[in-house]
C-alpha cells in the first residue's frame, strides 16, 4: 500500500471517530440496553431501582419503576416504592395519591415504613 493510501486511511478513520463520538467513548446506547434488561420482572426491576436510589439517582429510579409498572401494573411493591420516590422528590401530593389508590396493603413492613418516612403518616391500604 502506498504511503499516500495509508495517510488517507488514517484520515478516514479519524473522521469516523470525530463523527461518531460513541466509537471513542463508552457506548451510551449499550448502557440503555442494559437498563432495559434490568426490568424484565418485578424483582429485578425493584432491585435495579434500589441500586439507582443507592447511587443517589432518584429520577433514574423513577424511570426504572415506571418502565416496570408499564409491563407489570400489579407490582404493588414497585408502585409503593415509586410513591416513596415521588415524596422524596418533593412531590408529596403525587406520592400520597398513588398510595391512596393502592388496593392492597400487603407489603413488607420495611417497605411501608419507607413510604411513611418519605411521605408522612397515611392510612395503610386495607385490601388483600
Amino acid at each position: 500500500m502506498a504511503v499516500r493510501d495509508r495517510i488517507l486511511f488514517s484520515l478516514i478513520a479519524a473522521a469516523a471517530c470525530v463523527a461518531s463520538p460513541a466509537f471513542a467513548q463508552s457506548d451510551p446506547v449499550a448502557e440503555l440496553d442494559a437498563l432495559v434488561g434490568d426490568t424484565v420482572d418485578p424483582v429485578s426491576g425493584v432491585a435495579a431501582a434500589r441500586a439507582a436510589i443507592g447511587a443517589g439517582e432518584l429520577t433514574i429510579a423513577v424511570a426504572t419503576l415506571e418502565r416496570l409498572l408499564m409491563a407489570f401494573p400489579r407490582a404493588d411493591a414497585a408502585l409503593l416504592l415509586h410513591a416513596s420516590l415521588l415524596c422524596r422528590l418533593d412531590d408529596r401530593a403525587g406520592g400520597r395519591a398513588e398510595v391512596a389508590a393502592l388496593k392492597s396493603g400487603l407489603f413488607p413492613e420495611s417497605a411501608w415504613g419507607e413510604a411513611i418516612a418519605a411521605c408522612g403518616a397515611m392510612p395503610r391500604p386495607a385490601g388483600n
Partner: protein
Amino acid sequence: MGKYLFAAAMALTVPAQAQVVGISSAVQNDVRLKKPGALPRPVALRQRISIAEMIQTGAKSQLQMLLLDKSMFTVGPNARLTIDRYVYDPARNARSMGATVTRGAFRFLSGRRTQGGTSTINTPVGTIGVRGTMLDGVVGENAALIAAGEAMTRRVRGDPETATLIVLRGPGRATQGDVSPGVIDITASGRTVTVDRPMQAVYVPYPGGPVIGPFPLSNSGLMQLQAVLFPALAQRLGLQPPVDPDQTFAPRSDIWPPPGTVQEDGRGPGRGPNPLGRPGDLNGDAGPPRGFAPGVPALPDLPGIQPGRPAQRPQTRGPAVQGNAGADSAQPAPIGAASPPAKDSPPSSDFEASPPPVRDDPAKQAQPDGNGQQQTGSQPKTGKNPSRPAPR
C-alpha cells in the same frame, strides 16, 4: 483517490442523517415509529430512535423512551412525539434537547444532572423550557376535560385538539438525592410563566389563548392525568381517564360548539352541560384563533390536529393569569391564511391512515391483563368515559 474521499464524506455525513437519540425502553400495544417521508412501522423493544422520527401510539398504548443521557419520555395513548434536536456530550456532561408533542399525554424526566444545555418541549400552544425536572403534560381533549374539573379553569372553553395542561411534578425544593429542584418555563401567547413548585399546573386552552396559572392541580385532576398517561396501571387501580382509553383519537364535535350556537334553553353559545366551559366566561374570551402560537411551527405531518375554528378569534395576546382566571383581551381578527379543515370533515388521522393496519390484527388488540400478559381487548368505543366524575 476519489473512492477514499467518498468514504470520508460518508463517515462524516451518515451519523448526522440517522443520529440515534435513544431507545424504546417499554412498549405497550400499538406503538409505531414514522421516519420522515416514510410510513409508520411498529416499534419493538430496544428499537433505536433517531432525530425527526415521530412516535405514534394508538388506543390503550404506551411507550417509554430513554434518551442517551438517561432522560426519559413516556407517552400515553393516542400521542405524537418527535425529538427534533438532541445533543449529548458525556465528556462535558451537557445535553440539549428539543421535542415536539402534538397530541396525547406525556411525561418528561430529566436524567443525570447536566452542566449545561437547554431542553424544550413544543406543544401546539407554546413551548416548555425544562430545567432539570419531572413534568407531565396533556395535549388535546383530555387536557380540556381535566381542566374542566379544576376550579381555576372549569369555566374556560378549551380546544379539544390543542388545549394543553402542563404540571410540574418535581423535584421540589425539599428534594433528596443527587437532584436539583426543577423549574419549567411555559411560553405561550407571547408570555412566559415560570413554575417551580410540584403539583402546580398551567393551562392554555387554545393557541393564542390565555396562559392560566400556575395553580395547584387537584388530586382528582392528578389521578385523571395519571390514568391518561398509564392506562394499564390505571385499569389496575380503577382510575378513570376523562376520555375512554379504548377510543382512538377522533375530535369530538360535542365539546367544541361553534360560536352562535343557541342551546335548547335559549341561553348563549356553549351553555348547558358542555364540560369545557363556554365562550365569554373568561372575560373577553371570544374563542380560539387559528394557527399556532408564535414560534411554534405548524406540523405538516399532522394535518388532523388543526381543528376547525370559529370565524372570529382574539387578535391580541392575553396576559398570563396567575391565581385567578382573569381576562384575555380579545378582538376580532382576520382569518389566517391557513385554512383548517371543516369541523364536520373526518379527521385525517395519520395514524389510522397508515399501514400496516395493526389494529385490524386481533393479536394487536390484546390488552394487558395486569401482569404484562396480553388478553383480548374490548371493542373501540366512542365518546368520553361515562364514569368520569362530573366537573365541579
